[in-house]
């Protein structure tokens, strides 16, 4: 006889219960979520805000940003979580978030990403127009990247310009002066390479340094991807061919030839290891040198991009903050961004990074950080002098131009010639074909 308290569960009962539990779980999962919160809940349950941010070479800036976000969150009953990831990993996270319709509320964008993902971004025109008025105007490249079809899709956050950091002692010993034209740059580089300390420049597939050098190089010799309409491919030209031929001369005569394998960190290491005498970079090399290699910092200085036959050009890394259209906390996200953009907070962030990044608004030209160290003024000058352009120039930085950049077509135009995979003319033909394919897609 069985025990009275022990009920035997039949197969039918077990399956029935399991189905009921399963159905309940499915129903709960499919139930409509709570209504969207449009403003920080000052009382009651805190609003949650997730911010996706690329890790900086200057960690002090990341730490301070986290702190400022937390401070604002505490005051406004918002739980702010800032997630730092690598630059090169950001596109995958953005794509996954957009496709899933959930994820970070605010994402830090760079370059022309706002053009690629414009449909997934909230209109922030009111906020940006307000900032432009308050902060003395904005630089043209910051506007070009973020104003898509007359609508601001992201708030320009910072500019991270690159200039040439160089070893004053090596320059002296090799008896060369700071170059003011690209032809001089090649000649100076040849002497430095002969001296045993070549110029270093990345030519691999990496987000910042390779495009940062090779786009301005192309423009300076007169080459361009497309015409002003942003649609007609114009790469196949004598000017582009000249740019590629000069690149080959530069590569074998003046550059460290390992640059073909370099990513954004390689030149930092090579410079600090005293392998190279000069390289295009943000302020991170100088910042780290001052902190960890003071003797190297002492004999380092900076100069801006030389001029080419077509003029002086530069391509800055520009960052912006976009609010995702799927976010349930749009107002909280806007409030946080406006708080961080306020010079009272923002200047502190610029200061700890020694102007590694600074605001793309004109008030930043007079930021006190520029008085801290005369050697960093080149970073301000290259932004203020208006040489900054964007992929797709002289057209707008369209989604197609961003795709060309993401596919490293312009970088590979030079890499294919410098690695001798193609002759310069064939490399130009190859790149023009790739451009026509991308711009020709509907």
């Amino acid at each position, binding site marked *: 006889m069985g025990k009275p308290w022990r009920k035997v569960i039949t197969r039918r009962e077990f399956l029935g219960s399991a189905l009921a539990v399963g159905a309940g779980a499915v129903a709960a999962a499919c139930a409509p979520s709570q209504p969207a919160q449009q403003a920080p809940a000052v009382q009651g349950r805190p609003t949650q805000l997730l911010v996706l941010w690329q890790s900086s070479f200057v960690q002090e800036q990341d730490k301070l940003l986290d702190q400022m976000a937390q401070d604002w969150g505490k005051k406004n009953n918002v739980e702010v979580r800032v997630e730092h990831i690598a630059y090169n990993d950001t*596109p995958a996270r953005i794509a996954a978030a957009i*496709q899933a319709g959930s994820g970070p509320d605010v994402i830090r964008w760079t370059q022309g990403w706002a053009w690629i*993902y414009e449909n997934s971004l909230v209109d922030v025109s009111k906020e940006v127009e307000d900032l432009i008025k308050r902060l003395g105007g904005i630089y043209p490249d910051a506007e070009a990247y973020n104003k898509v079809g007359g609508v601001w899709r992201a708030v320009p956050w910072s500019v991270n310009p690159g200039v040439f950091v160089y070893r004053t002692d090596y320059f002296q010993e090799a008896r060369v002066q700071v170059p003011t034209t690209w032809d001089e740059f090649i000649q100076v580089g040849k002497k430095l390479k002969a001296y045993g300390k070549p110029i270093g420049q990345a030519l691999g*597939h990496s987000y910042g340094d390779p495009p940062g050098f090779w786009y301005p190089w192309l423009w300076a010799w007169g080459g361009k991807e497309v015409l002003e309409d942003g649609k007609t491919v114009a790469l196949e030209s004598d000017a582009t061919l000249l740019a590629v031929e000069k690149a080959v001369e530069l590569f074998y005569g003046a550059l460290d030839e390992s640059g*073909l394998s370099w990513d954004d960190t*390689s030149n930092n290491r090579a410079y600090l290891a005293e392998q190279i005498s000069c390289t295009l970079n943000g302020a991170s090399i100088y910042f780290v040198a001052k902190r960890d290699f003071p003797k190297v910092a002492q004999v380092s200085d900076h100069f801006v991009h030389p001029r080419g036959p077509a003029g002086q050009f530069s391509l800055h890394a520009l960052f912006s903050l976009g609010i995702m259209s799927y976010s349930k906390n749009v107002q909280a996200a806007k409030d946080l961004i406006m708080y961080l953009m306020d010079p009272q907070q923002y200047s502190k962030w610029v200061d700890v990074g020694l102007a590694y990044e600074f605001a793309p608004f004109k008030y930043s030209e007079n930021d006190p950080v520029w008085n801290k160290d005369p050697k960093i003024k080149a970073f301000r000058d290259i932004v203020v002098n208006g040489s900054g352009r964007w992929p797709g120039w002289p057209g707008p930085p369209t989604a197609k131009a961003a795709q060309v950049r993401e596919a490293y077509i312009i970088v*590979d135009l030079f890499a294919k010639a410098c690695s001798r995979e193609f002759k310069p003319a064939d490399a130009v033909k*190859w790149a023009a074909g790739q451009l026509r394919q991308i711009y020709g*897609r509907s």
Partner: protein
Amino acid sequence: MAEKGALAEAPPVAVAKKPARPWDPRLLLEREEVLGYLLMLPALGLLTTFVVYPFLYGIWLSLTDSRIGVPGGFVGLKNFIELTRDSIFQQTFRNTFLYTGVTTVFKLAFGLAVAVLLNNTFPLKRFVRAAVLLPWIVPTVLSALAWLWMFDSTFSVINWMLARFGIKGPVWLGTNPWPMISLMAVNIWRGTPFYAISFLAGMQVINQELYEAAAIDGASRWQMFRHITLPTLRPVIIIVVLLSVILTFSDFQLIYVLTRGGPANSTHLFATLAYQVGLPSGEIGLGAAISLFIFPALCLTVFLTLWYMRRQELD
């Protein structure tokens, strides 16, 4: 029989019970054929959610001009046709087959050699067998980062050692053909333990009497390997090669960490190119089409392998 006959002749006793209705939901669960399918449902649901749906969605995407955040329209085979004309894709196609072919041959040869060595008795045998697995156990990203450092143009330990012998090492990840060779070397280093341990497991179940009989007949070690070990091991070899080809064909992490497909696309494989086109460039339809190019090649590999195995069984 007598008992059965007695039962058959017994008077009906179930007068009070109604005859069972075949579609009574309570009784349906008592039927094995229904219950079997019901118990399979959770697994089927998981497979549908995580395998069938993404696969079908991938096929659909490849037939559209979708971009991230922008649902596209149906374009038929346009993406595939465009890809076949694209020089970067053509280069990727060649890279993928070369990478998979070369690494598979080397992993097979090294795996067999290591397995034969490990199948002997020697001091610290268990420790060595466990240690051999390390490259395969360590997460790929971690080991790839270590290799990145070893290939670094400034701090390469390999070049540092070569320099001690007066040899100037190449730019491992920069100057062709070294980037592809370097990637293959790392893939072989990582994949060989999987082959070796699988072969070792296969060798340990081979009947020792076969070797003893061969030894009595005067067979050499090579002859034993050639005529006993290899034929007996063939099913294991085929399965291991099959799995390895599938994994190598779709390799991503190693390339992503070491070269990102550069320099000048010389190391792109299908997976890395699909990522570059589909995610950072936002052309998810085209990216899906690149991914799907792997599918027919893998199907053919699986079909040929299974056909060969079946033929061996029949023989």
